[in-house]
């Protein structure tokens, strides 16, 4: 053997973090190398933003508080919607790994198995940051203006990161359950579509019927949208911020261990 092999002797916990870092690097490389997906992350938000703003703008603006343009109102909703739909990618990535046998390879190595999930979930933050930045720039180009301060923007970033994390862990569960990538798309369609559209992401809740409104104003996506929107428009956030944080943390606390447990169970049968 020409090459002398040197093994690292690190405590278990540090080694596990190292494994996760390697998996994050892997998943980020996937995102940057998968040109179709990257184009999607780039152009889908632009499409949505421009279409919604121009198609719904005229009709919805009458229902908005005076002085608020639909574009400024829409921005929070479309960012949250993009993040929610983006979590599908985590589900697809997890499902793909399980289908293609690479997880077996990882499991035959002396590594921390959950690093694979960590990798996909954390790399989702990268992709969502790209999408959100693209969207904000596009918004600015077509007339979006915000009175938010730097501190407000930091809060917006924080809440969006928390929201992305919680939805990506939910998506990881879907990815573990689904038997194929098509099934992932179908499952997320059934979960994410109603959640985003039956919310105040695109229209105010006032015009909705009673049942729909009761659902819309009490679900996490609305709380996140309302928090981000209030910060963008320079309005008081009220209880929305706390509700949003409680929901996201709640989802995380349940979804993380559940995804980990399901993943371990699925891969050791």
């Amino acid at each position, binding site marked *: *053997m*020409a*090459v*002398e*092999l*040197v*093994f*690292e002797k*690190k405590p278990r916990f540090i*080694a596990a973090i*190292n*494994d996760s870092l*390697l998996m994050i*690097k*892997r998943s980020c*490389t*996937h995102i940057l*190398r*998968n040109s179709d997906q990257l184009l999607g992350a780039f152009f889908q938000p632009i499409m949505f933003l421009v279409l919604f703003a121009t198609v719904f703008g005229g009709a919805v603006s009458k229902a908005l508080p005076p002085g608020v343009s639909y574009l400024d109102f829409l921005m929070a909703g479309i960012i949250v919607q993009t993040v929610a739909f983006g979590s599908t990618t985590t589900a697809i990535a997890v499902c793909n790994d399980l289908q*293609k*046998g*690479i997880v*077996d*390879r*990882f*499991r*035959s*190595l*002396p*590594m921390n198995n959950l690093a694979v999930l960590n990798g996909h979930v954390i790399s989702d933050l990268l992709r969502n940051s790209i999408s959100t930045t693209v969207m904000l720039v596009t918004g600015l180009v077509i007339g979006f203006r915000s009175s938010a301060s730097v501190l407000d923007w930091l809060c917006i970033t924080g809440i969006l990161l928390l929201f992305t994390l919680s939805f990506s862990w939910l998506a990881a569960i879907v990815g573990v359950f689904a038997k194929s990538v098509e099934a992932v798309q179908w499952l997320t369609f059934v979960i994410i579509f109603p959640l985003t559209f039956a919310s105040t992401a695109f229209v105010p809740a006032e015009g909705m019927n009673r049942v729909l409104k009761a659902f819309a104003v009490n679900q996490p996506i609305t709380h996140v949208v309302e928090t981000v929107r209030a910060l963008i428009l320079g309005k008081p956030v009220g209880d929305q911020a706390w509700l949003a944080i409680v929901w996201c943390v709640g989802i995380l606390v349940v979804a993380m261990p559940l995804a980990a447990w399901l993943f371990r169970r699925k*891969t*050791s*049968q």
Partner: protein
Amino acid sequence: MPHTDWAIEAKNLTKSYGSVEVLKGISLRVERGTMLALLGPNGAGKTTTVRILSTLLKFDGGTATIEGYDVQSAADDVRSVIGLTGQSAAVDELLTGRENLVMMGRLYRLTKASATARAEELLGEFDLVKAADRPAKTYSGGMRRRLDLAVSLIATPPVIFLDEPTTGLDPRSRLAMWEIIKKLMAAGTTILLTTQYLEEADQLADKIVVIDGGKVIAEGTAAELKSKVGKDRLELTFSNAKMLDQAVKVLGNRVADSSDKALSVTIVIQDNNEDIRTTLEVLAAAKLNISEMAIHKPTLDDVFLSLTGKQKSDVSQRIKETK
């Protein structure tokens, strides 16, 4: 490292999925530095056995140790001494060959410098230098298998599982893979190979365990297994049914098998060539013209068929189809 003579030892492994018993008590032992081939048709339990021994799968009963480490209670120790290649493992398709190697090396807990240097070395050994910086999804089947094997060797583990490493490869890639496997054996690696190709087991393995229906049905060296089936056989084909009938009469109780359809008769050859000569003379004296003649050495195919009692097992079927 706990010391034992056996690099791989499994005793009475059982595994069921619901009411389906996949393994019904598999026992096998592999001496350090040798290769054992696990031979059997599709669904015999080969991959299940490998998955259990490589810590991927829980099992219901029995014990298994790798280099003395128990696969259940010391799974992480086992993982640090094994490499796994084949249908139950894979490479990352979006990463390049080099990135795959370095990443897996790091996951084996190699230092960055070691992983990088070892990756370079393996790329050279496995003839992947030119393709090193291309994503693995652009690789041909043979290249992908080579990368897959290289990945499992990144930390030079003393025990390697090769799960059907040549299934689906073209003949040239298969020979290339055999050469690589032979080199590994020469370096003293302990190997457990699963295959449905009898020739592969015959060519490479020190010892063969034949499994079918989740049970071990025979084990030994290739020569031992062949001697169980018996001696060389002579198959004579005649031009018409009348001649065949006469030949069967002339040869009497020496006929081991005859086929009206193929117009052929098979006899077991006794110890020397003299036997063939006298047989031919007897037939010539009876004025029977032989249109075709063939000597069959017992193959592992015969071994397999006689052991499993299957006339057309998946294996022979497959081999016939590929011919």
